[in-house]
């Protein structure tokens, strides 16, 4: 299976980067092929430009070669994995920008004759989100779990009707000790090694 991992944390030694390594280890155990996009390391430009916005509804919405490269990876992927810290209930701006600029008409969806959105990522068989939260689980649930909703609802609606989603969250991250963090990394690796339909190892 082709797995595309998208990571959005500014620091290369962050816990989120350790999560990415766990994802990659889990995938390797199950013999999946992974490609990782570290948006900060790439220096991905987050803001959609004026020219891109004007081209959005046209025949060629992608103007940036870097975006074209990422769009090709999305089109080959059977699993999308997002790894990010939750800030203000949502992914960091750089990841929102990646969705806005890469998942454009012709890649993630198309407009039908009436101008309605129709799904375009039926090749994606699973969406996985792994996120760290400063707030505890109860607070996240009471207030707003926007990033999760965006990826497991809005993004999923552009995949196949039966595309399952998996969410793995580390809550109250700042008060989590080393043991909890290590257990979380193991949990992520195990989950990725045992995706439905993949040989367990």
């Amino acid at each position, binding site marked *: 299976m082709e797995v595309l991992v998208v990571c959005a*944390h*500014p*620091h290369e030694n962050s816990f989120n980067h350790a999560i990415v390594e766990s994802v990659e280890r889990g995938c390797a155990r199950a013999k999946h092929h992974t490609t990782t996009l570290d948006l*900060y390391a790439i220096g991905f430009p*987050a*803001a*959609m*430009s*004026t020219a*891109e*916005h*004007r081209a959005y509804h046209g025949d060629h919405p992608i103007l940036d070669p870097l975006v074209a490269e990422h769009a090709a990876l999305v089109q080959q992927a059977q699993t999308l994995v997002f790894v990010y810290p939750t*800030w*203000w*209930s*949502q*992914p*960091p*701006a*750089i990841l*929102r*920008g990646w*969705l*806005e600029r890469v*998942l454009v008409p012709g890649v993630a969806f198309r*407009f039908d004759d*009436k*101008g*309605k*959105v129709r799904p375009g990522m039926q090749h994606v068989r699973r969406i996985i989100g792994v996120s760290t939260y*400063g*707030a*505890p689980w109860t*607070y996240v649930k009471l*207030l*707003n779990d*926007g*990033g999760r*909703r*965006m990826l497991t*609802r*809005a*993004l999923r*609606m552009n995949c196949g009707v039966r595309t399952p989603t998996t969410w793995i969250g580390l809550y*109250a*991250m*700042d*008060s989590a000790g080393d043991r909890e963090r290590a257990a979380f990394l193991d949990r992520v690796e195990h989950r990725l090694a045992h995706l439905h339909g993949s040989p367990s190892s």
Partner: protein
Amino acid sequence: MRTLVVHCHPDPESFTAAVRDRAIEALRERGNEVRLTDLYAAGFDPVLSKREQARHLEPGPDPSVADHAADLQWCQQLVLVYPTWWSGQPAMLKGWFDRVLVKDVAFELPPDSNRIHAKLRNVKRIVAITTHGSSKLVNALEGEVGKRMVTRTLRAVCHPFARTRWIALYGIDTATDAKKAAFLERVGRQLR
């Protein structure tokens, strides 16, 4: 009221820009003192840097966004004008949240606590004016991420009795000119 309008759209000739102009006009007619932050026009950098992340537990904003933080602490009413993309705020506006609403500007974080305390008690009214490509039904199914961001996440750090108002045009991709004109009227009517 002291009102901060934050506008986010890449195209200066967009419908969202027309909405912004109508909103500012209506706010001024009602005697509000208005300041405008136009994120794209200002060339705002929405990406929180490694340096900012490293000091996120220290108080105060990064010097590069100090003016934005001062405007936020000045206002009594916050008006956000933006298009909804992927069911929420565009990256440019999300980055403004990430970089400007930091510790000791938007919230306090007591030692050994993982619950933030509201610091934007000066903000008594929050208004979001937005356009959605898809229908209200689709947005409801998607969970209205942007609306919750404004009425819950942002409101939680404002005044405890802060009022919120959601002014949205759904289905703009298929909307007629008459529908858009009616929305501009509505924006003018519903602002205080």
